[in-house]
């Protein structure tokens, strides 16, 4: 049996179920308790679990993230919510220099089972500081795992897996899609970390994406279908470790690849996927891998900038036609 759930409610279920199951799990962040979360992801959790386990912090990202890391080293399983990943930048020291490295620098004596979660990516006209994506940033760091998924059912199962995982995990959500609905199974289930999912099968071209750009890719695929082009759409779901196998297998079938990635182009997820595919599916490629990213700039406020900056179905269709050598 499945029911329709919004992404925010699916994430809420994931956290609540894990907190019922494991007394060491707690949620901490700005406005998570009394305000029910800036985006209402933790709605009702203070009522159920009380202030010992659902904790409002001051605006002190570096401090409360470090407190989370220490608590994780000392036997707890913190979930640290960032209002957005843009503010997690203040806490990168604790995520990158500590959470990611605790196991290594302690020679395996201390693990750091912690989840850092919050929305990543542009969310309308929010300008330079509030519009960034962080999958590539965090994905660059050995020691961390990175999940980025907006499908409510998958996001729920992945977050549950993340909370149970013994490694530090960054979970990227989407401000714009907290209300996005999908079928979510009843009852207990997990989605494994590190496994991509084919959202739409196709034969002519592979489009790889993640987070809200999956919807852009699907929209483009629908348009392309009308022109007789069959696109396969892969949702990476996990950024690190990245499921190259699923992408390679798809490219072996379609022989063409477009990566749609909201991050900036330089040294990002799109570049990484392109590298792996040229290395492991070189003989199967009928065209150079191409990609659609956000512009290589900061994002200004005006609507004209947002439109120009972000990937959209038209840009994806153009890229698909490019790898298919279709003019116009």
């Amino acid at each position, binding site marked *: 049996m499945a029911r329709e759930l919004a992404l925010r409610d699916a994430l809420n279920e994931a956290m609540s179920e894990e907190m019922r199951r494991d007394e060491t799990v707690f949620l901490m962040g*700005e*406005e998570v308790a*009394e*305000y029910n979360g*800036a985006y209402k992801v933790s709605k009702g959790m203070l009522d159920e679990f009380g202030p010992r386990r659902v904790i*409002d*912090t*001051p*605006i*002190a*990202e*570096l*401090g409360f993230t470090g407190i989370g890391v220490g608590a994780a080293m000392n036997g707890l399983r913190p979930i640290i919510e960032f209002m957005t990943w*843009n*503010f997690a*930048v*203040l806490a990168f020291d604790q995520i990158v220099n500590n959470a990611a490295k605790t196991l290594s620098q302690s020679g395996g004596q201390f693990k750091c089972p912690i989840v850092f979660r919050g929305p990543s990516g542009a969310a*309308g*006209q*929010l*300008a*330079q*500081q*509030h519009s960034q994506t962080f999958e590539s940033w965090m994905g660059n760091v050995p020691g961390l795992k990175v999940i980025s998924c907006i499908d409510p059912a998958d996001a729920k199962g992945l977050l549950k897996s993340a909370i149970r995982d013994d490694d530090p995990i960054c979970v990227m959500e989407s401000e714009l899609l907290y209300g996005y609905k999908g079928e979510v199974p009843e009852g207990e289930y997990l989605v494994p970390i590190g496994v991509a999912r084919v959202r739409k099968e196709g034969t002519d071209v592979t489009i790889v994406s993640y987070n809200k750009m999956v919807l852009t890719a699907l929209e483009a695929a629908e348009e392309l279908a009308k022109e007789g082009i069959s696109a396969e759409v892969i949702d990476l779901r996990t950024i690190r470790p990245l499921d190259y196998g699923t992408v390679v297998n798809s490219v072996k079938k379609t022989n063409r690849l477009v990566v749609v990635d909201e991050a900036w*182009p*330089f040294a990002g997820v799109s570049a990484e996927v392109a590298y792996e595919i040229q290395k492991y599916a070189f003989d199967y490629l009928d065209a150079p891998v*191409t*990609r659609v*990213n956000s*512009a*290589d*700039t*900061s*994002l*200004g*406020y*005006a*609507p*004209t*900038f947002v*439109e*120009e*900056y972000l990937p959209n179905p038209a840009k994806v269709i153009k890229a698909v036609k490019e790898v298919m050598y279709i003019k116009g």
Partner: protein
Amino acid sequence: MDTAVENKKKATRKKTNKPKYNKETYLNWYELMLRIRRFEERALMAYGQQKIRGFCHVYIGQEAVSAGIESALKPGDAIVTAYRQHGIALGRGVSAKAAMAELYGKKTGIVKGKGGSMHFFFAENKYFGGNGIVGAQIPIGTGIGFAEKYKGTDNLCVTMFGDGAARQGALHESFNMAMSWKLPVLYICENNGYAMGTSVGRTTNVADIYKLGLGYDMPSEQVDGMSPESVHEAVAKAAKHIRAGKGPYFLEIQTYRYKGHSVSDPAKYRTKEEVESYKEKDPIKVTEKGIIANKIATSQEINKIKEKVKAEIEEAVTFAENSDFPDPSGLYEDNYMQKDYPFIKD
């Protein structure tokens, strides 16, 4: 009531009511506060019409802070603040036209439609911006002050932040360095009682924010932020201290925001009574009353200001409406000073 107390009360009442400054000062305060209030009201309306998008944090209720600061500074002084900054920017001399056009995301805006509500900048008047990252401007303002001292000027930098921002570690790092290097920085915490839905008391053991300066031996005081006069006085005193080379000063200015945190916040975390109690001390109403009662100006003069401000804001809206959005290619402008920077465009 005991007569001594009664007399003392009368004396203070008399003292606070008696105008200490000249007519121009009072009328300037009144006009600026009214300009801010009307600007914000109009911005909220335009937001409702979806002409302004993104985040929009208005300054309604806090106008006296901007007014009192500006009258106590001298040309050459700098200001940096957070994202609740329309009122500060207007105080700094950003025109209502350029500010409104920015909110509309038009190319005639103060930063060409690049910043929106949170990011006005005005280099000409040393306005170093609105910042969207809570607390980020605290060390930045300290650095602006550092540069003034380095260059040997007697300018200072007013570094403003909210009660929520006061909990960022950067505040302590900045206070320590500013104090030990005697930097010309006036730290101002606009304590409006809330950081989003979190009241000051809920995330701290030290609700008196001015005390945060005391750990560094920084002169620190609490100020009534509903009166431009008391803000002016406190800033003037602090500025004198700073300009004498004695280092930074910290003012916790107690104020209140009448509206929610941003346009999308219904502000259910506080009572109507609380909001009403502040509206009774409304800085614009109280200032207007004082001007009339003390015969500083006539009601005709006040009405003239009201008309002037109204026309100015209407003109700003028309200007914003009639301006164009920036060309999309502008996305590639202002990222690097290098004009031919090779962007990745694949």
